[in-house]
């Protein structure tokens, strides 16, 4: 039986063809590191749970929302297109299904924390338009979108969220920094919750070489 108010964390990861090779390997390593890091942190272990949604030609949830203690890295392969719109649709369905609402007898979960990592333009315009029509106003989650490399369009990511970060490349070094920062963000969020539902999240300053898009 669980009475805890969880912090759901969703990672939306770009697994399109352009990520193949070093980038996708860095993402695999990054998730491994992220999970190892969090498994050593009692606050994160007691509050955070993690899910991975990948998007390529199709978007799918590769790891359902899982206790950190039970989380196992998903198998990631990179090929195909960039269904970012589809990923947002999956995210919405998952939040609806997995995140507990407050009821008379149960504490609801905290507002989910969502990290989106992509290295290029989405390829599913229609779905992307549908999903971004109200995603900002619904405020169902605190979303941070991170663009890697030269093919990312800031204005597109801005349609998803006001929190947009850019990193110069999708290199192993930058991706490793990204996951370290995600780890820090989850740790920070899991402790700053302090039973203040709905409060603005505080995240650590982004790593060097990352630009915050105003």
């Amino acid at each position, binding site marked *: *039986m*669980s*009475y*805890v*108010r*969880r912090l759901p964390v969703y990672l939306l990861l770009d697994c399109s063809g352009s990520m193949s090779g070093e980038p996708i390997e860095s993402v695999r390593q990054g998730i491994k590191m992220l999970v190892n890091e969090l*498994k*050593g*942190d*009692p*606050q994160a*272990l*007691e*509050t955070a749970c993690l899910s991975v949604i990948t998007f390529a030609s199709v978007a799918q*949830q*590769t*790891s*359902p*929302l*899982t*206790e950190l*203690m*039970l*989380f*196992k890295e*998903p*198998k990631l392969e990179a090929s195909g297109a960039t269904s970012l719109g589809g990923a947002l649709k999956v995210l919405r369905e998952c939040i609806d299904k997995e995140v507990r609402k407050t009821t*008379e*007898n149960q*504490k609801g979960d905290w507002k989910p924390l969502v990290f989106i990592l992509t290295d290029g333009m989405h390829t599913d315009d229609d779905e992307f338009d549908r999903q971004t029509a109200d995603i900002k106003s619904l405020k169902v989650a605190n979303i941070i979108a991170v663009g890697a490399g030269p093919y990312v369009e800031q204005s597109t990511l801005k349609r998803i969220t006001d929190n947009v970060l850019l990193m110069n490349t999708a290199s192993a070094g930058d991706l490793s920094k990204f996951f370290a920062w995600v780890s820090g963000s989850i740790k920070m969020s899991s*402790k*700053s919750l*302090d*039973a*203040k*539902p*709905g*409060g*603005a999240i*505080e995240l650590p300053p982004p790593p060097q070489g990352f630009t915050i898009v105003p």
Partner: protein
Amino acid sequence: MGNSENTGKKYGSLMYTQHGKIYKLANNPGSKVIHTEKSEAVLIKTSSPFPKTAFTKVSKKAEMPQEPEKSTEDKPVPEATEAAGLPEAAGASETPQVLSDWEVLQHTASLWKYKPVPKDEPEPYEEYLTESATLGSFHVTAARVRGKKHKHEGTNCDDWFETRNIENFAVIAVSDGAGSKKFSRIGAKTSCTGAMEYLERELKNLLRKNSELKAHLGYDLKDSRFQQAASQMAQMAQHAMLAARQNVINAFQARQGTPGYAEAVKRDLQLNDFAATLLLTIALPIENSDETFIVTCQVGDGMTAAISRTAPYDQIITLLGDADSGAFSGETEFLTSSSIDSLQSLMGRTRVSRKKIDIIMSMTDGVADDYDPNGKEMLRLYLDLLVNRVISSPQLEMMQKKLDKARYEELSKIVPAPQSYPAVTGELEPRMVPVQYVRELQEKQGLDLKKIWEEGRESLTVMAGAIQLNTGKNAATRLKEWLDSYVVRGSFDDRTLVILQRGE
């Protein structure tokens, strides 16, 4: 949530509760007696039990992520499934296994570190505060402990409390500094002391000017003299809150430009570096009556609740506060917020109540959040205090004498045994501190709180019998030990609880 529970009513237009009924004060503009049916209909809600189906047994043998030496008596020792002691993880795209809170806690228990309060920062605060004292006709038992989060990170405790006896009024102030603010502990302390200094002066003044005030507070609820006096006391509380706020502002200003402070936050100090909540309670036992007059005022989260042991089940708990986290706005109010600037702004946060009560408990959210929703769960807090022998109950003591040996032994087999977790105190060999959890009894026997309250006295007595450790220490030490030791998943905030017990 606050309005749907058994609660001392808001002070928008002055209201109060008596015997679970809610009234408005007639001399307040536009006020009328609120019909009692409504409040009683609402009260019934507090007795609605947890759905039984929600309870599943804790133990799933092979999955327990636990190290053998952490095992407690009533749980089976699991076999580790991986070298790290972690259970087999869910494969991708499969439905994840579910862990119970207990299983997660077994795993995190050894990960919590203890780092002492930092010495190089300005104004380090004590690790613990305890107080055991007689305040007029009340006995106060209070403690504050540094949360596991702060111990883990080596940061200061941000909670504070003060208690005072002012001409037989028992006064409690409880405050929680904002977790994200560096000097919120100073805000917490100065808000408590500010309120106390104001009341020490002005409540005495008021009593000098109006020597009948105390007597009037005991008059019939419809008597205008009672209503006048209750109004004065409500305003007194509101003024004390504003004085507390001013004291925090003064503390902030006094530290601007003082070396060490700006350096610690790496910029100029701001008032919200001192952000803190404040829960103020003023209670007067009515002479020649078993009723107590209570006025409370609260800004920010936390809870104050009264217990009437002999009341019908749905009227045992009276919530005397409302954790106003602003529901949807996402703005947590603090005493330092710019919106808290006038008596008007405190009207909706003030409650007046007169009823027969045995205990008042005022606490920061570090405790209140572990007993959520408060309207039901404050009773579980009270029962947890009983079974851990923090406070004594005449009923349980009587039961202890009445229970014969055979029945005692029979019950010992079916009630939960204490659970022990290592104390996070930096000792080389951490003590294992046994704690009883009434929730365990609920889960183990599929009982709701009402059933336990009405029929579970024997079980509670036997549970309390298994807690031996702190006997011989004073109540405040026992409270401190309990606050420092009880374990709830996701609960690692500072914990402060002030208990006011009315003498026989």
